[in-house]
């Protein structure tokens, strides 16, 4: 795997981002962690560096400010072999549905920011003729639900973006992967009651990410059971879904 060069993790402060960085570092890949106030991740950088014996770089990135993206990419330097976006903000659905500013932050964090940044990276990878882009999207984007549709709609947009990007770059040497983790035991889901069978650990997601790159998978449900669950949920007619399955 080390032949594939360094890996850039966008959203490196998250539990999943940290786990991904560890897994890639242990496979010998140098890591760049991008996050807001990246300096707070110094202990993570040390940990990843010690475990992997590879260089780890911290870079500041505000995913909500697309005007900073060119400067950010300059700071990254050589275009990494693999770029992984772990950015995500669940937000509070009740607040998101009454306060447009909050809804906008959720939409911009989950869709506009990552899509614009990955879009620019994709263009550069296309020029180079190689690279892997991995986006952590969500099963919440597979069908809008009353309980999380602001988040879900942004993830749906991101899923569609990744899908289009994959099809555009399929013949250009650039591989695009969409990861749909399902429930993950992280800061984002803290305090929620999650069904154990459907809930993955951050390490499980990280291993699925690394495997998806090696096996050149396109769309990955981290726990295969989610493909079944979402298949069933997707098959329920809207007429029934809207009254019987409000959760």
């Amino acid at each position, binding site marked *: 795997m080390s032949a594939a060069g360094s890996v850039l993790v966008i959203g490196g402060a998250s*539990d999943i981002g940290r786990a991904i960085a560890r897994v890639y570092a242990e496979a010998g890949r140098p890591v760049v962690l991008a996050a807001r106030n990246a300096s707070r991740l110094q202990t*993570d950088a*040390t*940990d990843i560096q*010690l475990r992997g014996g590879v260089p780890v770089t911290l870079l500041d990135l505000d995913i909500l400010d697309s005007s900073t993206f060119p400067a950010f990419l300059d700071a990254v330097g050589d275009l990494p072999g693999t770029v992984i976006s772990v950015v995500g903000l669940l937000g509070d659905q009740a607040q998101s549905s009454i306060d447009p500013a909050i809804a906008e932050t959720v939409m911009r964090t989950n869709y506009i920011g990552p899509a614009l940044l990955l879009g620019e990276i994709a263009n550069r990878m296309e020029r180079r003729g190689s690279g892997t882009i991995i986006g952590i999207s969500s099963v919440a984007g597979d069908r809008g639900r009353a309980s999380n549709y602001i988040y879900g709609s942004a993830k749906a947009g991101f899923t569609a973006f990744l899908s289009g990007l994959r099809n555009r770059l399929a013949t250009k040497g650039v591989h695009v992967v969409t990861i749909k983790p399902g429930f993950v035991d992280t*800061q984002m889901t803290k305090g929620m009651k999650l069904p154990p069978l459907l809930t993955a650990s951050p390490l499980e997601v990280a291993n699925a990410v690394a495997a998806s790159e090696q096996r050149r998978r396109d769309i990955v449900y981290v726990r295969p059971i989610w493909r079944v669950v979402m298949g069933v949920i997707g098959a329920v007619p809207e007429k029934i879904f809207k009254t019987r399955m409000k959760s």
Partner: protein
Amino acid sequence: MRISGWGRFPQIDCDVMSMRDRQDALDAVRSQPSLITRGNGRSYGDAALNATSVLSTLKSDRILAFDTTTGTIRCEAGLILSDLLDFAVPRGFFPPVTPGTRFVTLGGMIASDVHGKNHHAAGTFGRHVESLNLLTADGIVHLCSRTENADLLRATCGGMGLTGTILDATFRLLPIETAAIRQEVAIAADIVETMALCESSANWTYTVAWIDCLARGARLGRSVIFKGEHASRDEVGDASLAVPRRRTKRVPVDFPGFALNKWSVRAFNELYYRRSKPGVSFPDYETFFYPLDAIHDWNRIYGGAGFTQYQCVVPVADSAVAIRRILQSVSEAGLGSFLAVLKLFGRGDDGLLSFPMEGYTLTLDFPANSRTFNLLLRLDAILAEYGGRLYLAKDVRGSADMMRRGYPNLDAFRAIREIHDPMHKMASLQSERLGI
């Protein structure tokens, strides 16, 4: 969230808070009226349970510093021993002390002041801790070492989390040449032979005896004795620092309550005893130290009601009589234990509530039911006669009286806890039950 110790008895519903860094720990300690820090939940009983909330360290598992020449390492409390092994072994190092499972956290190892098969030579894990950072209930972080806050260090090693939350610790790893163990197996026909072999094996780094606790009469205390040394490169060849490939099996469902009975356990013990052959071999360290870890969720073989592990130590002077009487009681009750392990400890350690003392420690597993608890009360009485004590990391049902008699430094421990946590904010179901 519903949680329990490894014995799955008792189970309680409480808030599980999580700490990723020092600030999270501080927020939890400030916001909660009562809590106990919890690692990977491998203590057997109620030591890492609190009716209000527990603070999980599992997300604080960073390696903060490592010196490749001396083997000195600094890690956060939530680091799991298995991950530490994955890091250390390929670099030619090994934990100075390891318990019988690699699924414990560093913080748990310190709070329980765990021992291993090398206790007679190396002492407890706490003996190897150079320093640690401890967050006490008053929100202060104390750097504790032999020279700074030494009292707090002595109270924290073995202190079951009651002095505060261990944030990180520095200790020295042991250099090794290979990942293999040179193992020598010996067979002992009765308890006298078993103890004689334990005593004559003191020059080995690792020793432990597996006892057939259902054998009676002349065979009482018959055992298989395992002795081990880290194998040298000359013995097993080069390129041998790889972490062994793990072929783990799962126990997919709870066994029904009747699966483990007098006959099935007797058959297992008989088979195990007969299959063991004396001689030398070179298993990898996982096979030698963590045989049960190869079966995930092995605690389910005791069924949904859970089980308990009874581990006691008796002072060396009367141990021949005391261990014989305990084994007789177990054998007579017909409540055989799958796992029965005997080990000769070396001198006791610095921790005020450390378990080991110079003498024999016996470990037994039983399903959690009234017959077991009645038997354990009889064992407690024998233990008390000889000045023995119970291991808090395993205990789920001991009494405050046993605690007071077994741990002569309890008052010194209480005095230190009083300074930093007079309201006893850091408390567990166990500390309340035992009146610590």
